[in-house]
């Protein structure tokens, strides 16, 4: 079988490439990267744009250096904690989502089984040590010793619980539900709210005078008097959602709420004051005692401590959403965390290349980044070689005025600095894939045109061209069927080199934030890293994209090196 000369010429470089070991290695690596681009959605375990969140039973422990993350208590969030007793037999209970109950005795954790999988929201100990737990869908749990009693209220989520006396407790929840529990009989009775507009009640605490104070949405505060069984509205001085209330036996009280709401009462008969907060994120729990200690915790790892005059942010270096505080003497724990964004997480089994500042999976981003790199790389290079080869062919073949005009144009292009020109082009005409490819290729064809022309200049004087001309072949036929196959090795060489140049150019534009918008590219990942400032510590963020760019371009260079031998036969003889 004889192939047309055109095809045979095209195949020659490939055959030579297979003989060069480095070129074969480059070809293999490049095929891998092309496969990566084609199958990026299959290869990435996450959506590259998805902000990854994770739930965790997080425990932050106060140390002299600040609050540090302790060992995680399982994969679900912890919602509330309570403590009973002083020395021996002292126990803390921590409740969380999906029926999680943990007991903590002198620093040791033990998992308890309450016989439920409902989310548990609140826990409190009676003066006798009976634990009361309230949870989703009207679930109320009583624990006396090892005996668990389950009570069902109506289908509303219960959010707060507090004992009023030994056998008497109050449980509050959504829809302004207030339930009074008689622990002896395990019966509950509904208490009517004075508002009746279906607000969510979030927390309840026993006040120093024996009444209970309930807080809820929109600054709602309801006082319940167990003696008369009556309820009354109270003004605490805030209309923000209030999340938690803590009152000491002495009457000092702290209410925490949305947008950094901190309401403090210095004594039982003192007025409520709104403290300025150092951060305006939601505060979910607070703790105060009579000695002047006060702590408030909230979303995104916010922990504030009262230093006697003002609230100060404590360093936590954690993004976890804190929901509860457990303070037993000097043993202070902050507990959470419902779904929090896994920002700047180092590589793990879940995120192979870690996550970025928005919690996006970097492995998936790097996989997807190959698409833009190769698209711009190959399309740009094809465009460059197409223009450059034709200009070179025409200029070299026709000579004369045509050549002067074309080559003068090339000379002018050599006067235009590449990077600044590409920048201006993209910035003036809004980044888009089209403009980026144009910016990458509009100037680079100058080298190709010069090279091809010089090659054509020698070829056109060769006997076979003269023979073709004598035989009556047209200019086009001579140019494209007789001369072109002979410059093909050079064209392939240039193509390979320009692919590398284009990939780097695209990465450069993307790095400067000028890449195709809404696309993920290797340069773009590095742009994000630089912009966030976290790249100085998050090595997993800026190493992989650069290595991938380098590997891709290097593999292309290795391939081009073998083609150089084709284009320059003198090299073949020496090596």
């Amino acid at each position, binding site marked *: 079988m004889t192939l047309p000369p055109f095809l045979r010429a095209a195949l020659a470089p490939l055959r030579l490439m297979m003989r060069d070991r480095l070129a074969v290695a480059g070809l293999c690596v490049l095929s891998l990267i092309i496969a990566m681009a084609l199958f990026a959605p299959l290869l990435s375990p996450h959506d590259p744009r998805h902000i990854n969140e994770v739930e965790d039973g997080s425990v932050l422990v106060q140390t002299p250096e600040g609050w540090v993350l302790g060992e995680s208590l399982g994969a679900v969030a912890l919602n509330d904690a309570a403590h009973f007793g002083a020395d021996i037999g002292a126990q803390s209970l921590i409740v969380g989502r999906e029926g999680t109950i943990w007991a903590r005795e002198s620093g040791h954790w033990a998992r308890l089984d309450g016989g439920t999988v409902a989310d548990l929201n609140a826990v409190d100990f009676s003066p006798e040590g009976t634990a009361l737990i309230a949870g989703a869908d009207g679930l109320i749990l009583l624990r006396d010793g090892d005996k668990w009693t389950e009570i069902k209220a109506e289908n509303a989520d219960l959010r707060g619980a507090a004992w009023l006396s030994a056998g008497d407790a109050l449980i509050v929840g959504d829809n302004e539900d207030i339930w009074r529990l008689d622990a002896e009989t395990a019966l509950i009775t509904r208490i009517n709210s004075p508002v009746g507009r279906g607000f969510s009640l979030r927390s309840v605490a026993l006040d120093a005078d024996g009444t209970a104070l309930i807080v809820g949405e929109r600054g709602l505060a309801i006082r319940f008097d167990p003696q008369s069984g009556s309820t009354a509205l109270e003004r605490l001085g805030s209309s923000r959602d209030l999340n938690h209330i803590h009152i000491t036996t002495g009457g000092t009280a702290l209410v925490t709420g949305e947008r950094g709401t901190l309401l403090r009462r210095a004594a039982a008969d003192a007025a409520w004051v709104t403290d300025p907060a150092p951060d305006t994120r939601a505060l979910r729990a607070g703790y105060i005692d009579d000695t002047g200690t006060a702590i408030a915790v909230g979303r995104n790892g916010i922990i504030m401590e009262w230093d006697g005059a003002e609230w100060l942010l404590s360093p936590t270096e954690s993004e976890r959403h804190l929901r509860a505080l457990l303070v037993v003497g000097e043993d202070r724990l902050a507990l959470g965390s419902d779904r929090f964004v896994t920002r700047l997480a180092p590589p793990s089994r879940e995120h192979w290349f870690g996550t970025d500042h928005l919690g996006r999976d970097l492995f998936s981003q790097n996989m997807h980044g190959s698409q833009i790199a190769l698209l711009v790389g190959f399309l740009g290079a094809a465009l460059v070689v197409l223009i450059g080869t034709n200009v070179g062919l025409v200029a070299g073949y026709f000579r004369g005025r045509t050549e002067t005009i074309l080559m003068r144009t090339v000379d*002018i292009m050599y006067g235009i600095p590449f990077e600044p020109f590409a920048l*201006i*082009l993209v910035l003036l005409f809004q980044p888009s894939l089209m403009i980026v490819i144009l910016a990458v290729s509009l100037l680079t064809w100058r080298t190709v045109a010069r090279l091809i022309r010089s090659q054509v200049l020698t070829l056109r004087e060769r006997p076979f061209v003269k023979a073709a001309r004598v035989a009556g072949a047209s200019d086009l036929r001579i140019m494209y069927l007789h001369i072109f196959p002979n410059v093909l090795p050079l064209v392939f060489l240039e193509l390979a080199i320009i692919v590398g140049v284009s990939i780097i150019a695209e990465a450069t534009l993307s790095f400067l934030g000028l890449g195709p918008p809404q696309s993920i590219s290797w340069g773009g990942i590095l742009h994000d890293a630089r912009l966030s400032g976290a790249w100085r510590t998050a090595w997993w963020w800026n190493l992989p994209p650069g290595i991938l*760019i380098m590997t891709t371009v290097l593999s292309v*260079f290795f391939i081009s090196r073998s083609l150089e031998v084709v284009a320059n036969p003198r090299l073949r003889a020496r090596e």
Partner: protein
Amino acid sequence: MSRRNYLIKRVVQALFSLWIIATILFFLFRMGLPDPTAALITEGLNAEQRALIRAQFGLEDPLWKQYMLFLTNALQGEFGTSFSYRAPVAEIVWERLGNTMILMVAAITLAYAIGVPLGAWLSWRRGSLADTLGIFVGLMFRSAPMFWTGMIAILIFGVSFALFPTSGMRTLPYDATGFFDKILTLDFLWHAILPVLVVALYYLGSPLLIMRNTMLEVYGEDFIEMARAKGLPERDILYKHAARNALLPVVTQLAVTIGLAAGGQVVVEVVFSWPGLGREILNAVRTSDFPLAQASFLIMAAFVITLNLLVDFLYSTLDPRVSFR
């Protein structure tokens, strides 16, 4: 053609190129930024003041009039006032150009000073492990995007070991009366090491590989056989006979590189906060400071063309075969 005529022809060609580039630039900006003063709204200028500026830049005139104004201004070196700096554009641009050139010249010099002898040595040891390694490392730095190499260099030498400063040309605040006053200090050298090294590593690949490949070609020439036959030591053959004759393609490459040096390496300037011309263009276009962006680019292009011209003349003196075409 006589040498004088050749020179004149090349200078005329260069001026022609510059005019074309200025024209392209003018229309590019008019297409991309129909109302350059739009960016000034944020600065609290009222409609009246904007109209004044529009008139000042002749933006109300027909396009051909604007174009003529632009050309005459450019010819007189009058580039207007920068919107963001509120200072004459020309002053800013010349200072930035100096900063870019000192970085580029230092880096290119370093790259060729290392690359050429190393390339010659690699060709001598062709096929050895050192040869493969040398090619690999040269190509590797050529393939790595410079902004990334820069970031990694900062990460390692600037942050982890805290050996070198990572941004700017001098420790702030400093006062220097002139360009040379600014750069002839140890502090400047200290700031320049990392960026120069990063650019040099990128450029290292070409002299290295070109030198190596040309040397391989030269080894096959008769005069090398002759030198061998005379019993000269390999060292002498390598450096005195072969290397000298292999230098020409390297010089060609050097000429092209220097010619484009004024274009600088925008990303390196960005990564190292080097106050160069490339970074200035980026900022100017970003903040729609079009007098500055336009002038920076034009002066940069003028410099590139002048360098190309100079390099051509020098080259024609070096190699009589190429001259007076």
